[in-house]
């Protein structure tokens, strides 16, 4: 256990995680470019990963770290599928503005 780690309190990690998550949420809500929205989602996922790791370390439980691997794998798969969709949408509509991609409604 590194001495360095002990000097950083738990709340800092959590604070950083929640700041990152909030940034992700805000970006997800206000950005118009589909790619930026997508990146915001990745930001949120990684904020959650950070808190998982933090708690795993704090409580000496391995479950949290295992869960992080799951999240990373899902995020990687999601990135692949999501980017493919974004490319398909761009080819079809020649735009990536989320306000103009609004055909999926009644």
């Amino acid at each position, binding site marked *: 256990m590194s001495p360095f780690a002990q000097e950083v309190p738990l709340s800092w990690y959590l604070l950083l995680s929640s700041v990152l998550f909030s940034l992700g949420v805000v970006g997800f*809500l206000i950005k118009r470019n589909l790619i930026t929205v997508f990146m915001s989602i990745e930001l949120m996922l990684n904020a959650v990963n950070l808190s998982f790791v933090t708690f795993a370390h704090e*409580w000496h*439980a391995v*479950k949290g770290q295992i869960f992080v691997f799951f999240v990373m794998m899902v995020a990687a798969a999601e990135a692949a599928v999501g980017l493919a969709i974004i490319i398909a949408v761009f080819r079809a509509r020649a735009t990536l503005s989320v*306000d103009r991609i*609004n055909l999926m*409604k*009644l």
Partner: protein
Amino acid sequence: MNVHLHLWLIPLLPFVGFLLNGILGARLPRWLVTVIGLVAPLVSFVVVANAARSFFGLGSALVSIPYIETCPFSWISIGTLHVDFSFVLDQLSLVMLLVVTGVGFLIHIYSVGYMLGDRGFARYFAYLNLFLFFMTLLVLAGNTLLMFVGWEGVGLASYLLIGFWYQKDSAASAGKKAFIVNRIGDFGFLIGIFLLIGNFGTLTFAEIGAKLSANPAWQGGILTVIALCLLLGATGKSAQLPLYIWLPDAMEGPTPVSALIHAATMVTAGVYMIARTHVLFDHAPFALGVVAVVGAATAIFAATIGLVQNDIKRVLAYSTISQLGYMFLGCGVAAYSAAVFHLVTHAFFKALLFLAAGSVIHAVGGEQDMRKMGGLRKHLPVTFWTMTTAVLAIAGFPPLAGFFSKDAILFAAFQQGPSGMLLWFVGLVTALLTSLYMFRLWYMTFMGESRSPEVHPHESPWSMLAPLLILALLSICGGWIGIERFSQFLMPSTGARLAESATPHLELYLTAAAVAVALLGWLIADRLYRQKPELPAQLANTVPGAYKLLANKYYVDEIYGATIVKPLLGFSRYMLGWVVDVAILGGIAWLLGGTALLTGAILQRWQSGNLRSYAAWLALGAAAILLFMTAPSMLGAAGVNIHLNWMGR
């Protein structure tokens, strides 16, 4: 001792005939349809005759009586109640089976000639075989439930055959009327069955009889209720007051059907049922009295209507109702064997009357109004002589069949004390009326000169005349066995034989009275319809009220229409149709549907297609869930005790 009689073949063969003719009949040639339709009842009759041989010890071995054949599989088994497919052959069912299959077969032969030109030839024979299937099932049934199956089945066959010419509106509605009126009776029968289950725990006739004879003091009470319920069923099927109204309309069916179903066999099912369950009626004297009164009232009531009818088949229909009334009268004075005796002889001469009437109708080209007939004696000699035999038989002239059986019933009624004498008197008056309307029919149809000279009648083919001759023979000889021997034979099934007369020569006097009224009826008819043909019209004009009342059949149909049918229809149409169906059920359905539509209309605004609004809702939802999850710990901070238990602690 253990001969197998193969009773199961008796109903099964007509059923096979029904299936073959019903499914393939339209594609088969006519001769094959005829063969199938005739072989089924013939083989059934042979099986019955073989059973009768064993019965009298003429065959290889004597069977034990009653002979019971049970299907190896049980039918219904609920708790302590067990119902099997069991067939019982005893004296009563043997007599009935001989009549059903014998007369049934003759009428099948007759039908070949009568229905030859009809498009629905195969359909007709399919229905006729179906009827025989259900009727033999009814007769052979060893318990009330199986009997009820046959009972409903013959009702179905009757409905199908009354409405055989369904293109005719009157035939279709006559079929419906028969079916619906019978429903009322069947309702009573069904309630009776339920009460039997509740009070006896069994439906087998033998076990019910055993329980009652083990407990001779059990009288009246629930037994009266059960007996009255069964009686209601019998009045429906056997066309007694107050449910007789369907039978005259049933004459819309083909004439052989009227002969078989609505004269000889099916309508006697009620009498058979009462004789079959007579132990119940013996323990319910009040119900027995009701049976007698219903029978006597129906007998005279229907006979008076029969006096003024002009349709030849309707006269016979009212005559059937009246004769069935005699049988009920016989049952009601506990002379079951006399009632069954009359059932048998009536089957012979009434089938003959109907078949002869069919021959007449056939000859004059479908005309049924007797006012347009007359003088047919010269053209239809065979029909005339056989019909004459039947008329003499039903009027009760010795030594024909009807004389013996009618006499037996009247004699039994007379011996029941003062009330019995009243019943006897009603029966005697009915005998007078019977003779009168039968000879009226006879004179109007065969005697005098033809009233429709343009018609050229022709005698019917031999396939129709042969059954007439056989039935005429039976109408003459059918009663010679005598009530003494007949009731001796039936004693094991229908209880003690008739009491001997206390007064010497009483029977002789009563017989003389019966023959005298029959003669009197003939003389009156002779005067009214031969010597002075203008007299009936004058008579009708002197008492127009009475004539109108009779000609309109006492307005019973109209009364039922106004008091029962109309209120029921109104209730169904307005109360059930509008209030319940449209307002309540429709309202609920409309409310449910409307709620869903309205909710949808509001919620569909959420699906705006705008990605960022979805994102906003998503975030809002996540925040709400987060708040919900963290609320306990916030409360915990406020001093409420909280356990976190999902982290493996």
